């Protein structure tokens, strides 16, 4: 599993992805970890297949008992079907996920982990020295869907928004935005159902100071590419399957 530090201050953001041992027929995902001096948050920890490589990778940065929090942006299997296994490894951890999905997510097995339901309006994840904002992104694509904003690191975790489908082993940052667009178009047109939700979300993100936009698939956007992405997404018609 490739590990890339994307923020280094009093705490760290680390991106994990491009797992070379991933089975070919499952979608590639990016996992993000926020590591403070004594706590650790896993953002969209991934599917069952990814549990072992992901935990092995995290053990480079944190011991098991300091992995205190998990966040699931929505209910998809590529996000959180590993939940039951995390529950066995981290019996005292908390899962922050939409209240709306609680009865569904528990199908993955959630006996020992504490489920902290996020209300529709969002909220915060407090890691002691760091507080992250949970930003609503409903219907993009999931009906109860959240992003994470870190105002200090200026990192915005956008879940499936900004995702791209491309072959294995690609760089972790967008290098040529225009060339990248084609790898995102179908994903957004087909998986994102609502132009209205899209507009509300874009307004929300534009009001924030974002240096890195970090999606769950594909590459991260840095600096001006964040603005380019928002403009491109704004002009894109989504919900094309009807």
């Amino acid at each position, binding site marked *: 599993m490739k590990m890339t530090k994307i923020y280094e201050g009093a705490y760290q953001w680390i991106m994990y992805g491009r797992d070379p041992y991933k089975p070919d027929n499952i979608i590639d995902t990016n996992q993000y970890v926020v590591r403070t001096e004594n706590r650790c948050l896993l953002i969209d920890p991934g599917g069952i297949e990814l549990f*072992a490589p992901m*935990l*092995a990778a995290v*053990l*480079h940065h944190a011991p098991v*008992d300091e992995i205190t929090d998990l966040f699931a942006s929505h209910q998809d299997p590529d996000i959180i079907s590993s939940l039951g296994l995390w529950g*066995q*490894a981290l*019996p005292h951890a908390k899962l922050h996920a939409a209240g709306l999905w609680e009865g569904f997510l528990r199908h993955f097995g959630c006996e020992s982990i504490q489920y902290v339901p996020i209300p529709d309006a969002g909220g915060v994840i407090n890691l002691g020295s760091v507080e992250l904002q949970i930003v609503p992104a409903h219907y993009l694509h999931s009906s109860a869907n959240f992003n994470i904003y870190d105002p200090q690191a200026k990192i915005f975790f956008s879940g499936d928004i900004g995702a791209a489908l491309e072959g294995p082993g690609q760089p972790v940052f967008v290098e040529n935005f225009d060339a990248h667009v084609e790898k995102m178009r179908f994903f957004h047109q087909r998986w994102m159902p609502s132009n209205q939700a899209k507009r509300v979300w874009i307004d929300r993100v534009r009001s924030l100071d974002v240096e890195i936009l970090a999606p769950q698939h594909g590459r991260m956007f840095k600096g001006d590419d964040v603005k380019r992405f928002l403009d491109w997404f704004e002009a894109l018609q989504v919900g094309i399957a009807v």
Partner: protein
Amino acid sequence: MPMSQNKSQFVAVASIAAELSAVMEVAKEISLAAANAKAIAFRAGEKARGFQPITDFINELAKETIELVNNINEHALKLYRLTVKEHRMSEACKRFEKVAVSASAAPYASSLTPSLQQARQRRTDCRRQFSRHVSELLTQLADVMHPARAARVIAANSRIEASQAGEYLQSLQAVAESVDNAAQIIHDKVHKCRSALSMINAVD
């Protein structure tokens, strides 16, 4: 327990539930047959005097079977939950062992040890509980065989009583026939359950 065993365990436990619900249906049929026989015997009056207590007895046996099966169903459900739990524990152990190998060079690799030990302990507990429940279930299933066997004896008696019932002979014989059939079916199904269970425990 290897994975294939775990899968066959799921199938065995599910098939037991299926056989049990079939037993339940048949027991209800017997109970219906008993009510039917009672009505006929009432109409036959004197001629079927010997038949009347038999119908009551058949009805009781059916009730007893239904009650036993209800209890067994609860047990089978517990067994199913244990199978799921055991499967989850085995999966967790397998993955943790994988992590322990691939993260051996990671600075915090050893921090996984308590979780791994706990998962192994839980897996052992699950297996132990599972074996205990299987033995209990086997005993309970043997208990269901008793009313079914008794019903067959009674069905034989019913045939003799029916032969003295004049024009009611045929309908009463039909009742005896259906009770006998039903008892045979219950016997077979329970037998299937028992052999499925014995197989799990033997491999265990």
